[in-house]
């Protein structure tokens, strides 16, 4: 164990852009990839990491001063900037727990398949980041216990498979895609909430019969779902609130300049983060392919569901429409919820993920997609706020340049109750 520990310490000491490629390379070779292919894809992941460092720098440069100004001039305490799921994922993969999450989650999956505890074969390796995220939080609050971190990641992975099984039939029937399930780490946490809310709604006469039409919204407002447009609007809005009402010493043209610059910077963030994350993804895809082939060969005689990303559900018209409306709702919630510190930003482009499971579980009810989405976002904002100090610490620990100061980072997409419960329990039981 000590040898493993010291090898591990050496690897983590190298920094994520080096460590993760090494792990991914080794894993790829074990799963039967060719050396050259494994080399290219593993280094691609490292390149994604480096690119991400640059974008995080831009994010702070753009939003840091504006956030500080916002707090100073309005007293609104939205100091935890939402950096979005892409950055959250890369940070989660970049930790010690993250580097081992592929091995842990795959092992959990294999064992559960062998014991017939699940029918899902989770090939969506990208979303193992959710398990890594949970594990990394636990690792941090337990003062660096790798074992507890990995156990937490394994629990999240296992629960995801079970809930994936639970919703598989509904998903398959609603989207007419046979043989798949959705064990995505965030989506599964929304399932008990949706089922619970549905149970309540069905008991209320009147409310249970409401179902709005979503088509017009999706057609008319679709333009706001585009990352650049969303960035411009958010940046300008943010600039107006931060600088517009209390310009202080600044002249009108200076204020206008600041607002416009923030609009373009925000548009840049909305467009650039996904592009960089795509590089990361490109490196991870061959590994995920290799794992799928490896697993499918070994479980060839079994009936199983292929576990996929909830991203495949997001094209449904109801989901697209509800996701657009959820953007202003989320911003409003962030402003009025007492105690919330999360400033929704990058994940506003991904609001669809937060309601992806509602249409298949409610037979495509648009009204409920909006209602449940709003309730879910309240939870997400509070959990993201409570994670912000930890998230910021983890990012700094793995080497991203986080400036000292009042501004923190967090991610709406990290706002799931499994991570919150496991982190809270670990902190109480094992916290330093």
């Amino acid at each position, binding site marked *: 164990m000590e040898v493993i520990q010291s090898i591990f310490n050496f690897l983590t000491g190298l920094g994520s852009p080096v460590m993760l490629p090494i792990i991914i390379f080794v894993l790829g070779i074990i799963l039967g990839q060719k050396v050259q292919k494994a080399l290219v894809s593993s280094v691609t992941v490292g390149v994604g990491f480096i690119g991400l460092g640059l974008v995080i720098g831009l994010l702070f440069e753009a939003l840091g001063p504006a956030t500080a100004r916002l707090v100073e001039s309005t007293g609104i305490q939205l100091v935890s900037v939402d950096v979005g799921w*892409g950055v959250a994922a890369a940070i989660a993969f970049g930790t010690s727990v993250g580097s081992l999450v592929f091995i842990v989650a795959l092992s959990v999956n294999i064992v559960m398949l062998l014991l017939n505890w699940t029918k899902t074969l989770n*090939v*969506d390796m*990208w*979303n193992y980041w959710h398990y890594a995220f949970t594990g990394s939080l636990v690792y941090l609050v337990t003062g660096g216990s790798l074992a507890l971190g990995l156990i937490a990641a394994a629990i999240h992975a296992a629960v995801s498979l079970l809930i994936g099984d639970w919703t598989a039939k509904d998903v398959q029937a609603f*989207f007419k*895609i046979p*043989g*798949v399930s959705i064990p995505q780490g965030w989506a599964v946490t929304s399932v008990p909430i949706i089922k619970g809310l549905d149970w309540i709604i069905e008991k209320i006469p009147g409310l249970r019969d409401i179902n709005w039409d979503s088509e017009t919204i*999706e057609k008319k407002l*679709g333009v706001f*779902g*585009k990352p650049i447009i969303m960035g411009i609007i958010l940046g300008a809005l943010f600039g107006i609130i931060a600088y517009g009402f209390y310009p202080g010493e600044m002249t009108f043209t200076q204020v206008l300049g600041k607002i416009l610059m923030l609009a373009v910077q925000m548009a840049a963030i909305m467009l650039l983060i*996904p592009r960089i*994350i*795509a590089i990361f*993804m*490109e490196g991870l*895809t*061959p590994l*995920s*392919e290799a794992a*799928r*082939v490896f697993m*499918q060969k070994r479980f060839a005689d079994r009936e199983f569901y*292929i576990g*996929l*990303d*909830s*991203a*495949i*559900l*997001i*094209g*449904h*018209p109801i989901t*697209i429409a509800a996701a657009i409306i959820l953007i202003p709702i989320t911003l409003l919630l962030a402003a009025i919820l007492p105690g919330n510190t999360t400033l929704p930003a990058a994940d506003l482009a*991904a609001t*669809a*993920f937060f309601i*992806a499971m509602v249409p298949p579980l409610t037979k495509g009810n648009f009204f409920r997609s909006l209602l449940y989405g709003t309730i879910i976002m309240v939870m997400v904002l509070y959990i993201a706020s409570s994670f912000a100090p930890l998230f910021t610490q983890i990012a700094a620990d793995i080497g991203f340049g986080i400036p000292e100061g009042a501004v923190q980072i967090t991610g709406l997409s990290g706002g799931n109750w499994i991570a919150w419960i496991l982190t809270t329990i670990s902190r109480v039981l094992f916290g330093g």
Partner: protein
Amino acid sequence: MDKNFVQSRIYTIVVSCGTAIATSTHVALKLKEILPERGFQIHTIQCRVSEVPDYADQADLVVTTAQVPYDLNIPVINGLPFLTGVGIKEVIEEIIVKLSAGEKNQ
């Protein structure tokens, strides 16, 4: 098919999913790996499902992992087999048939 057969033009394929990042990258990589082996030079554009109508008029084909709820004048093909590994051969044949048949509406 003759191994030396190479289509002269470059086909544009829009690859869409919920994010333009995750599953669409997977599908785009597979397309870029497989189609040139079959003699089709391709260029891929990745986008979110809601952006498909913006790119569809410059493309020959859409391959998507999420539902595309729009009326388009180019074929839309389900890209899920690339993720599940079930039915990849069939979907490749389908893509090749559609690319060969549909001359671009200029």
